[in-house]
């Protein structure tokens, strides 16, 4: 190893270390942005170093430079535009699309490497063959799977679980094609057509894997696919013998895996059950006001609620999926600000899976200028709720259902917000329709609970108007 190589290897090592440090800084909201910037700076250094390596080696052709530069500029511009213009509520599907791009890039890198290999895949060494196979198979599954997942979240692909007759059989056949193709290549037969067949089958498998999964489970799926892309990138690293790709890919693979588990745990669902699909509903809750259990439900008017809120000392707001779906976070914050101006102490109790993915609600509220000190996590919120005068629930359901404390309930064991310990409970909800778990919420039959049936956006605006009348 000469001096130049030593320096570039040390730089790549520093880049990988900065990725780890960048993730470490994301432990706290106060340092998170610095962490992301450190990571971005490391990425820039890695790219510049690679340019230097390629320039010094004099191997890249003029056409290669043109192809690479134009590709990077176009891709970078598109990515920048998408990232700048996206609405925060559409964040999950954008992450999914970028993830698809990463998976697609990892797959194509393996293909180009094999095309450049003299004699093709049959003459590559076994490490390269294994790494290429895994890269292509995993990369293709994440590419098509992430696009379908983004489509489901965006409403382009129906959110309901899509199961057609024989879809399981199709999945199995596609998986078998991938395995058979891999065996063919590993035993030194086949060639490029077999690798292409594996890629096509894996693309199909990604589609049939995600279609049967309901829209509500999509965040978990995106997180899983994010981890997959990390592993695919690490495999590309094995094929190209690039340590920085291996390190960064493995980091993302592990982080995505842990995140996936945290999300599934917070929903009290096993990953296996999610992947088998058929559970979960579409984004839009439908249904009229139907008290399914027959127990009495007390309805409140906007004026009632405004008075209750105005006379409270401490209000804990519980925002949920319905708030995110209605994009009503600004209306919510306007109401909270009016209350605070009136001397009411307001905080936000955020369940780990509120919104469309963990932490999404925090982002939505932060966008509406809520400081993160006003946001309570599950434990902090449950310490505060018993001394709260009012718990105001906007578009959340299952995460407030006291049934989760009773053994035998389907959601038993799911961590919930103890809203029923507050002095009174107010619920803004479109209808008595069920949440994600398909259960009646016992909270709604509690005598101290008042229900206000409205779309989150319209309901909150009505409350603000009523409050304005009242506090004048």
């Amino acid at each position, binding site marked *: 190893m000469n001096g130049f190589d030593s320096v570039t290897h040390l730089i790549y090592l520093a880049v990988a270390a900065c990725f780890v440090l960048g993730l470490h800084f994301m432990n706290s909201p106060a340092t998170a*942005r610095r962490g*992301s910037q450190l990571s971005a700076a490391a*990425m820039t250094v890695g790219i510049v170093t690679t340019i230097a390596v390629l320039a010094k080696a004099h191997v890249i052709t003029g*056409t290669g430079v043109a192809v690479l530069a134009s590709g990077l500029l176009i891709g970078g511009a598109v990515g*920048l535009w998408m990232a700048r213009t996206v609405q925060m509520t559409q964040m999950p599907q954008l992450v999914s699309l970028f993830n698809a*791009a990463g998976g697609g890039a990892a797959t194509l890198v393996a293909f180009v490497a094999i095309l450049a290999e003299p004699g093709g895949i049959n003459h590559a060494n076994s490490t390269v063959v294994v790494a290429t196979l895994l890269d292509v198979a995993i990369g293709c599954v994440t590419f098509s799977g992430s696009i379908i997942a983004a489509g489901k979240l965006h409403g382009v692909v129906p959110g309901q679980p899509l199961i057609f007759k024989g879809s399981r059989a199709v999945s199995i056949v596609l998986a078998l094609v991938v395995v058979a193709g891999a065996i063919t290549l590993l035993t030194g037969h086949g060639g490029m057509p077999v690798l292409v067949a594996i890629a096509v089958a894996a693309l199909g498998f990604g589609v049939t894997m995600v279609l049967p999964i309901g829209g509500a489970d999509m965040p978990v799926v995106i997180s899983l696919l994010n981890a997959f892309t990390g592993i695919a990138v690490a495999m590309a690293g094995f094929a190209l013998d690039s340590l920085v790709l291996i390190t960064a890919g493995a*980091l993302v693979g592990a982080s*995505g895996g842990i995140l996936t588990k945290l999300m599934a745990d917070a929903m009290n669902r096993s990953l296996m059950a999610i992947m088998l699909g058929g559970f979960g509903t579409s984004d839009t809750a439908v249904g009229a006001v139907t008290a399914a259990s027959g127990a009495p439900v007390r309805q409140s008017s906007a004026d009632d609620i405004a008075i209750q809120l105005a006379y409270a000392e401490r209000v804990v707001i519980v925002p949920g999926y319905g708030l995110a779906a209605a994009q009503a976070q600004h209306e919510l914050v306007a109401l909270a600000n009016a209350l605070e101006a009136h001397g009411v102490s307001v905080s936000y109790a955020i369940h780990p899976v509120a919104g469309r993915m*963990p932490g999404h609600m925090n982002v939505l509220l932060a966008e509406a200028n809520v400081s993160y*000190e006003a946001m309570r996590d599950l434990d902090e919120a449950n310490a505060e709720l018993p001394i709260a005068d009012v718990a105001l629930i906007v578009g959340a359901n299952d995460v407030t259902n006291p049934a989760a404390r009773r053994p035998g309930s389907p959601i038993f064991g799911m961590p919930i917000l103890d809203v029923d310990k507050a002095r009174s409970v107010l619920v803004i909800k479109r209808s008595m329709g069920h949440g994600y778990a398909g259960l009646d919420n016992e909270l709604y039959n509690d005598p101290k609970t008042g229900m206000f049936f409205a779309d989150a956006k319209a309901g909150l605006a009505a409350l603000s108007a009523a409050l304005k009348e009242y506090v004048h």
Partner: protein
Amino acid sequence: MTPALFADLAVFVLALLVGIEVISKVPATLHTPLMSAANAIHGIVVVGAMIVAAATDTVPGYILAFVAAVFAAMNVVGGYVVTDRMLGMFRQRPVAKAPVAAAPVAATDSVEAGA
């Protein structure tokens, strides 16, 4: 197994463990930005796209390398910009807000919460 492959595998396994260890400590508040940041980090595949673009000299190779470069650049640029945009929104309570909020309280706030 060659020593080089063994070294690569060791790095792979240790990086997995570091990833698990670092992530397990992140609060749920930051899970969405974290997912986005991790998404941006696998944009390192852009380095792979550059390496293979230098190794190829056929038309199919150039075409695939071009698409790989577009995808990888989209992933890395978009990923970091959107993460930064999200994290830029996490701010502390503005200091100036406190006295404003305290002013119009007195009249109604002395009433005991009757709910």
